[in-house]
């Protein structure tokens, strides 16, 4: 049992409704059962309605840490949406940070009503690469659409995180937690989503 840093600081970010809290629980539970001290900080309340949301995970072999990650001290960012990934990078990034990000944008309300510009996709991607030591990308929303259920974007991203091999997270452990979480009728779709995430990430 080893982690590259202690505590290992992970940010999971996205837009309210994407299932951010659900996957922080899946990952946290899987790691807890492997023997780590896990603390998860969540932001929820009114922000769950389409607002920016993020969870912070602190994983340690030594003790229970507080839930918040200091500025510039994330080791890993799992981004369910590219703009939110960049927002978190600006706050928690550092030259050593690794990103695993969905490439599919969700426009902001300001961008929809033409009051603000949503940044160009390729510019966003470039900025994420520039601010990271390593950046993996996956079109999780595209894959989810092909599977016929955009709701599984979050599970595809957990797969992508496993596929990146940046964290001691085993596929079997996550699958076990999924069996504990989802109705069994939904498992076939979710297991497929996890698999697709593992196999489709690109540097």
């Amino acid at each position, binding site marked *: 049992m080893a982690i590259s840093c202690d505590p290992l600081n992970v940010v999971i970010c996205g*837009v*309210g*409704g994407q299932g951010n809290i659900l996957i*922080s*629980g899946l990952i*946290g*539970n899987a790691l*807890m059962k492997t023997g780590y*001290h*896990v*603390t*998860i*900080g*969540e*932001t*929820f*309340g*009114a*922000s*769950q*309605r*389409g*607002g*920016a949301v993020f969870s912070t995970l602190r994983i340690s072999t030594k003790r*229970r*840490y*507080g*839930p*918040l990650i*200091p*500025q*510039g001290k994330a080791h890993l960012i799992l981004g369910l949406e590219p*703009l*939110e990934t*960049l*927002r978190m990078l*600006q*706050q928690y*990034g*550092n030259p050593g940070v690794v990103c695993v990000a969905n490439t599919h944008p969700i*426009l*902001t*309300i*300001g*961008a*929809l*009503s*033409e*009051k*603000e*510009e*949503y*940044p160009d996709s390729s*510019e*966003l991607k470039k*900025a994420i690469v*520039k*601010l990271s030591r390593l950046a993996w990308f996956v079109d999780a929303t595209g894959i989810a*659409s092909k599977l016929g259920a*955009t709701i599984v974007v979050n599970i595809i991203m957990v797969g992508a995180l496993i596929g990146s091999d940046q964290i001691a997270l085993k596929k079997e452990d996550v699958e076990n937690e999924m069996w504990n979480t989802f109705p069994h009728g939904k498992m076939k779709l979710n297991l497929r989503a996890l698999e697709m995430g593992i196999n489709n990430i690109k540097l």
Partner: protein
Amino acid sequence: MIKLLSGNEALAMGAYHAGVKVATAYPGTPSTEILESLARHDDIYAEWSTNEKVAMEVAMGAAFAGIRSLVSLKQVGLNVASDPFMAASTMAVNAGIVIACADDPGIHSSQNEQDDRHYAKLAKVPMLEPSDSQEAYEFMSYAFDISERFDIPTLMLTTTRISHSKSVVQVRQEQTPPAKQADFHYDVEKYVMLPVYAQLRYSLIEERLTKLAAFAETFPFNQVSWGERHLGIITSGVAYQYAREVFPQASFLKLGMTYPLPKNLLLNFAAQVHRLLVIEELDPFLQENIQALGIKVTGKEFIPRTGELNVDIIEKASRSVGLLPEISSQPLKDMSIKLPKRPPQLCPGCPHTGIFFTLSTLGKRSSLTKSQVKTAKESPLVITGDIGCYTLGTYSPFNAMDTCACMGASIGNALGMEKTGIAKKLIAVIGDSTFMHSGITGLVNAVYSEGQITIVILDNRTTAMTGHQDHPGTGISAQGKKTRAIDLEQLVRGIGVSDVRVVDAFNMKQLRNAVRGAVDSTELSVIIVRGTCAMLAPKGSASMVIDAEKCNLCGICLQLGCSAIQRGKKQLYIDSALCAGDRCTICQQICPRQAIHLKSRVESVKLL
């Protein structure tokens, strides 16, 4: 057995294992999940009370009858419950009663940032503050024991960061103790607070406080951990976690019980360190009470009194007074791309969208912006608001809310403005759950005072913002049982309102006529806007699509603020995965060119 639990889940499990049999609450972020977790146990009684005052009174009743009870609420909820809370602290409680109260430093989801630790001092009750989920779990059995031993309610105080963070909990037992036989014993000196009996209580209350202070000296979670002696830190709650990360070498006195304070423990700790510091969130509660014991201590001179603390803020504050060395490095940032903000918004298919669009257009409010400060000049309507998802109607594109103070305030605020003789029509907007919570008394007052205001009750059949809890209007209990539903329309008519209109939240014509009629009326009116919350209703079988040939990009549909309606490079389109389709149809109803129509979801995907 280990479990990954949020602070709230841990509090609930702790209470359950401590033998709580009656649990009451009104939903409020960040405290909601305490009762939600308890309600899953069918061997106890759990209820969503109408409001926090009622919740407190029900819990007191259970305790009087010898049964352990728990009230859970958020910081402003304790304001609502403060009358029975003060009463409970004056009289005797008999069985254990614990008030689990969650503060919200940083105002993540509240209307204020009040520090409820002051309530412990005001009510002269013991207060425990857990610093993680393990302590939240463990403290509960202590809280009940203290309550019974000293015949007093115990305040269990958490913050958003404790309530909503998850950490690993070692769970002791899986069983809850068996229920005791409830009974009540006549004792008017303890239970009837007539002046003659209440006067007798006060010497007992002071005596009890002295005994509690002695108990605090031995409370096992008031812990000293010795590090280097040049810096000693007194702290509690989540601030302990941050302080320990900033000063890993320092000595700590971590207080699990923060009222009353353990004087000797504090004096002893202070005497053995060179410099003494208090690190706490919000007000200097610990600091001032420690200073009152004659101990020299600093903290709030440089640690902020407002907002949530974190490691960065404590580090920066400590550098400013030389507790840590200065550093110059800045976190790496690339600001070449300006990131648009992402505020929360109403869901696609939300039953509030139509009424806010109506109020916004009839009230000529869509062009109101922050720069035009005097909104009243621009709009013929003043819209007093209330607390719920619908407070989002404040934001662009609706700009349809002028005030939002506290639960139920919309009706009183509207009446007060009207009674000044203001030349604008007053409309109060309030949700169904909020109306049940504290709108009813405001409406009684408005009818009695012959107000001419309009009250719009947004009846989405749930308490949506806190995560869809039931309330008296839904007819379902906290434990999922069918119960009696209170009929809103009958209730309003019973109060004496004769101009009551019940309209379909998704029928724009009905909404417009109702608001127009109410604005023109000279008597008090109530509009009940009925439509199920989008997150509880199944999506329609079809999705809306925009016919690009008919659409002239006028942008009126964008004024709905619906996130399903998207702007492509050259045309507007509707995301079929988000659209509520034939359940909503509001965009179709308002499109001046009839360019929006329904298509089956399969076909609408093909179009994209």
